């Protein structure tokens, strides 16, 4: 239902390309699509409007009119403007204060405060070597305090002992006292979820703020949040004061427009992203990635970065050198296969590439599973070194042996060889493109073609 912006703009820009030049109406038409794309990505309306105005100012003018591919130019302007509005990258948690540093966690019910509290505590403990104390001030939801205690045990971070019947403000005071007496560096205060319009509970959190004087007040926001982001951001910021934002469930398939709304309305940086249920699934914020996601342009950068993390540099260079010479052998294919698996398999990778929605659908229809990669690995490893370097050696009987050795069929072996051939051809074609082009194309060439 929600096409990415690139898809939406495709038609308009196809038309533009043929005409050559970009008029003001064209920019207008494109921006209408941008507006819809942003709204569908759940960016709050007031933010969308100011965004569109900003882009219009930049887009209408000679810069675009003179450019050779106006479509790409507009997309670039939109993207850059979005990155700019999303703000600085990765500001980190501010701990510049006298220990124990109080950190207050705020948010609606079910936004992921408790999990985020434990994740941040774990991060501070392992990366910054801080001694952290966590305290749950959630006396409302059944077993909420228990939840934090269990999480504390899991990540080996101390939690304030639970005293039944104690009210949140008292717990906060006790947490700070314990923090001081027992020499903690940081005290994380996990508050109960509250509605931004619940005056009583907002007053309570203001009292908590006043008795603890937190250095950081982090607003935890679900990436799926819709237009209500405006109210949430405004109320929490006006009443309690927010110093930073934590976006959770960014691993879902929501486009995350709330990030832009939050950032714009509070003027506060997005500090961290929750990327999964595991306790270490917490990442620094990168505006360009979220921008691509909001626009539906895929998370190219994340992919590249992830690839960079996993792919052995040396190996990649060796591979690139080989490719340049045009002798890409099965050993190289094997190492590529392994890298793909390391990167989280086809599904994980595809979801990060732009414009692959369709391919993904086809893939799921074709019912191709990850095990295929493993099988292909098995086939290659069942070959001798000589065979891997020169596939011409592979006659029928060798193929039978390989199939037997890898627990597959001769047809599977043939299919792999065909795929290798396709890849090798492709590699030769992309010889001139340099390393980057090679890598991207190399990966996509690995994708099985219609079985």
């Amino acid at each position, binding site marked *: 239902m929600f096409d990415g912006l690139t898809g939406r703009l495709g038609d308009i820009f196809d038309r533009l390309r043929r005409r050559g030049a970009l008029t003001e109406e064209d920019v207008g038409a494109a921006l209408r699509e941008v*507006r819809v794309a942003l709204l569908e990505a759940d960016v709050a309306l007031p933010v969308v409007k100011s965004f569109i105005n900003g882009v219009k100012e930049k887009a209408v003018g000679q810069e675009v009119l003179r450019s050779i591919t106006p479509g790409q130019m507009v997309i670039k302007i939109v993207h850059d403007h979005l990155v700019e509005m999303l703000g600085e990258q990765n500001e980190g948690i501010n701990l510049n204060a006298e220990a124990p540093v109080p950190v207050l966690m705020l948010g609606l019910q079910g936004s992921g405060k408790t999990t985020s509290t434990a994740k941040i505590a774990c991060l501070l403990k392992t990366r910054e070597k801080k001694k952290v104390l966590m305290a749950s001030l959630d006396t409302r939801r059944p077993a909420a305090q228990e939840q934090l205690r269990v999480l504390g045990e899991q990540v080996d971070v101390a939690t304030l002992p639970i005293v039944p019947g104690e009210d949140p403000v008292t717990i906060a005071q006790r947490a700070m006292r314990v923090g001081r007496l027992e020499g903690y560096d940081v005290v994380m205060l996990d508050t109960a979820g509250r509605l931004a*319009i619940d005056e009583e509970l907002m007053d309570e959190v203001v009292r908590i703020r006043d008795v603890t004087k937190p250095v950081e007040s982090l607003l935890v926001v679900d990436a799926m949040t819709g237009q209500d982001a405006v109210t949430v951001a405004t109320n929490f910021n006006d009443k309690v004061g927010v110093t930073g934002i934590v976006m959770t469930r960014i691993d879902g398939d929501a486009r995350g427009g709330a990030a832009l709304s939050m950032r714009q309305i509070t003027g506060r940086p997005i500090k961290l992203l929750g990327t999964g249920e595991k306790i270490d699934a917490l990442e620094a914020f990168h505006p360009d990635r979220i921008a691509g996601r909001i626009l539906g342009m895929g998370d190219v950068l994340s992919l590249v970065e992830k690839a960079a993390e996993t792919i052995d540099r040396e190996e990649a260079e060796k591979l690139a050198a080989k490719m340049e010479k045009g002798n890409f052998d099965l050993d190289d294919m094997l190492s590529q296969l392994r890298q793909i698996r390391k990167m989280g398999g086809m*599904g994980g990778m595809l979801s990060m590439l732009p414009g692959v929605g369709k391919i993904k659908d086809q893939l799921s229809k074709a019912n191709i599973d990850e095990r295929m990669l493993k099988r292909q690995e098995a086939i290659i490893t069942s070959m001798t070194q000589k065979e891997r370097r020169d596939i011409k050696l592979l006659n029928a009987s060798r193929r039978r042996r390989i199939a037997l050795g890898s627990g597959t069929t001769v047809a599977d072996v043939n299919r792999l060889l065909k795929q290798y051939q396709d890849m090798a051809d492709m590699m030769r074609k992309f010889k001139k493109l340099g390393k980057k082009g090679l890598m991207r194309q190399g990966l996509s060439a690995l994708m099985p073609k219609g079985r």
Partner: protein
Amino acid sequence: MFDWIKRKKPAAEAPAAPPTPETPVAVEPVAQPEQLAPEPLAPEQPAPVAVEAPPAPVVPKSALVLDAAPVAPVEEAPQGGWLSRLRRGLSKSTSRLTDGIGGIFTKRKLDDETLEELEELLIQADLGPAMAARVTGDLAKSRFGKEISPDEVKRFLADEIAKVLVPVAQPLVLDGNHKPHVVLVVGVNGTGKTTTIGKYARELRAAGKTVWLAAGDTFRAAAVSQLQIWGERTGAPVIAKETGADAAGLAYEALEKARAAGADVLLIDTAGRLQNKQGLMDELRKIVRVIKKVDPTAPHTTLLTLDATTGQNAHSQVEVFKEMVSVNGLILTKLDGSARGGVLVSLAQKFGLPVHAIGVGEGIDDLRPFDAQSFAASLVGLDEGR
């Protein structure tokens, strides 16, 4: 109050009947009040938001009120009753829109500019750009260029929206033939599954049903304890295992036990999961598969909880959960906040899944029947009573 869990009696079938949307008063689902009225914690009632309703909220002039019980005095819940809380919440959330519409029209001609502003107001209620355009388009078709007052506009919009919602506003009907009637509750993390189960258990218990709970969220820390506390509050036995146990195995065991005990209803909680996590969705399918080994017709109801705060991603949630585990009912939670859950309108149009109830707070009595007219009215800020 209990109307959305009405028993399967011929008489009770009425509420589902789709009325002609132009005449909101046509919804005549008069429930059996005698069955419910004496219940002490029962009878608050949804705001009577029929278009013509006068401010006084306790006059059930509106036919939309499902339980026509004479209920005014019983409303003093600890925090001032859900109605006042709801009103408080909704007035906050609707005031922006209401002011907005009022601001646009102090009797003026319906022109392009006005329509655009109107469309934007609907977008801000999370209706989504497409639905907002459709609704305002309808308005333009019939009234373009004419003088129109803010009230007329609101009424028109509310009616248009209600048209879409009325067919899905259906109470959850328990099938007495199943012992127990198995209700599986699924949804994304933090949408309110466990809380909804707690509140639902309370309603069922108050209606005299025996209810068993299965603590199927074996993943999140302390989720089991959370449900156990709800079990104590509602007097429902809870089948639980330690965190990390196999949820499907637990569901199986719970169904066997509940069946042996002759329970009326079994509510199965599940761990929250994002719909794009294939592995977790497969796990959910396994739960369904395993339940079917005990009772091939179960789960009889699969409820998806949706958070009203959620924007357009709700589409993806409904689509995937429906495909994976055949969700056949929705519950919209957290409607007491400033979020208005307008995405429900396009969901209703696209999927047509019944909306059984709404959650309006964390209290044990904060589960309400879903009323299309009043929901539509609240979306456009049309309830004088609030």
